[in-house]
């Protein structure tokens, strides 16, 4: 069984064909980069895979659960870090995680364990509104990891962060990968995708235009040594990154 299986997935919304027949598989323990320009269908795909949106047609299974029929069984097995920082700002970091812990039925001790894992234990009592963006992002990752999910969805986890903070986030992802957590990662930073991902898929206008390891993609679509994943991306999508 695969961690993620997607077959001919379509998702239309208000007349817009956001996702147009994508198919791919992700192995357990794999870090899978899902790349594409703005509006290519990345976030829509994540929303379908995490059960927030129903596919218009096609099917998807995550950890063996159908994303429509088995949505409730799926939820405790996935963790999601959204592209925006959606935390309860008036509550402390510990209160935020304790809330999630109770939702997932996770023992209380996991709260401090997870806070320590992302380096926030010493600021656990502080309200979120006093946190920097980087700290919030680490807390979002802690929240997603609290219940030890089998698959972690990271939607642009380093967007808008200082280079130093982004590096910290990347090292957390690397550590998770070493621990065997399956990671589904979207990012605009090609270097990040290249460094973290075992394989990447490039989505353009709702369709997957390439899928393989970064090295293979660079070899297949590049123009000799020194080709970066960014070059491949621009070549395949015809888009500048920003």
């Amino acid at each position, binding site marked *: 069984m695969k961690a993620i299986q997607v077959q001919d997935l379509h998702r239309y919304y208000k007349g817009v064909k956001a996702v147009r027949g994508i198919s791919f598989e992700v192995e357990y323990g794999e870090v899978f980069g899902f790349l594409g320009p703005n509006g290519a269908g990345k976030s829509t795909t994540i929303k379908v895979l995490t*059960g*927030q949106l*129903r596919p218009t047609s096609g099917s998807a299974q995550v950890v063996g659960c159908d994303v429509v029929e088995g949505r409730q069984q799926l939820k405790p097995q996935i963790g999601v870090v959204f592209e*925006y920082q959606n935390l*309860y700002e008036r509550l402390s970091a510990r*209160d935020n995680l304790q809330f999630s812990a109770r*939702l997932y039925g996770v023992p209380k001790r996991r709260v401090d364990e997870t806070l320590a894992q992302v380096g926030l234990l010493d600021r656990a009592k502080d309200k979120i509104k006093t946190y920097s963006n980087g700290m919030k992002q680490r807390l979002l990752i802690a929240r997603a990891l609290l219940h030890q999910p089998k698959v972690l969805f990271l939607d642009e986890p380093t967007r808008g962060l200082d280079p130093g903070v982004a590096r910290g986030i990347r090292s957390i992802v690397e550590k998770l990968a070493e621990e065997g957590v399956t990671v589904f990662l979207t990012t605009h930073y090609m270097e990040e995708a290249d460094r973290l991902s075992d394989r990447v898929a490039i989505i353009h206008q709702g369709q997957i235009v390439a899928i393989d390891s970064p090295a293979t993609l660079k070899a297949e679509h590049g123009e000799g040594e020194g080709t970066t994943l960014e070059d491949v991306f621009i070549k395949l999508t015809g888009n500048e990154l920003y």
Partner: protein
Amino acid sequence: MKRYGINLRVIGTIASKDLLDAFKNRNILSLMFSVFMMVGLYRFLPEFESGETPPRLVVYDQGNSQWITQWDADTNYDLVATASMGEMERYVADRDFIVLGLVLPEDFDRRIESGESVTLDAYVIHWASDEAAGSIRSYFEGTLGNDLGQDVHLDLEGHTLYTRIDSGGYAFLTSLTVLLALSMGGMYIVPHLIFEEKQTRTLDSLMVSPATQLEILIAKVITGGTIAVLAGLLTFCINAALVTQWWAAILACLSGALFFVAVGLLVGTAMETKQQMTLWGFLLMFAMLIPALLVTLGSFLKAGILTLLRLTPSVTLINLVRAAFTNPVPMQPLVWNSALLLGWVAVLYIIILVILRRKDRANG
């Protein structure tokens, strides 16, 4: 913890988080503070008034006494003459200040002329304190005694009057403040909580957690309902002198909270912006107050219109609140108004479920 397909732990967790968050939310705290300022101001303002208004005597004269004309001319007090015992009782119950009801027997003039000692039946409203009742009795024993030129005893023993389910005055105004307190929890805090979850997008994290849409909704009902019930009960406590039936007060709070939370959920799920939410909340509150005011004050309205207005949720709720001030409780109106209000609640929850289902389908 799973009952009837819903996870009680999840509901309890979201509701307790919402409560904790609500009491840390400045907007909600200032709203609660404003409402209780209004409730408290209304309740305690009369205590600070100058008290220069002359006391009022409401007389039911069974024998067309000649003294009425003389008393009417006395500027030390206001006299109101009523045509029946019922009218006198109604007058006393419909005030928001304490008046003394008095019955003059048929042979009152003869007894005064013969110099017999006179003891008259006097009536006072139930929410008057012993001190206030004693004070107004003493006052009229003195002034009437002066007018009549002989001692008069006013007997209040066993003559306490109770407000009715349709009383105006203090009972009606207090029922409006209870309505206001209940609406704060339901109609303002619930949509505020939902809107904030949407705005900060924490709703998305809830939707990928084990919580279902129904469980999130029930949690909001519990949060808003708890605040509404507490606010309603606190308002009853502030006006405790008026309350004769605490069970009826609790029933009114519970059913009122259910209703206003349903309105709040409707506003919260249907509206997309804070401006829309505030506008609709205000319009709905206004729309609910109008029938209550018209039914209580609008004796000029046609019977058919009044009957229709009595079916509106705010009127049924105000009747339920006023049932807590009656003695004995009129069971038939109580059951009828409870059934009507629960009917409204059921209709609102059905509409909410239809909206949610449509939204869910729109996602699908």
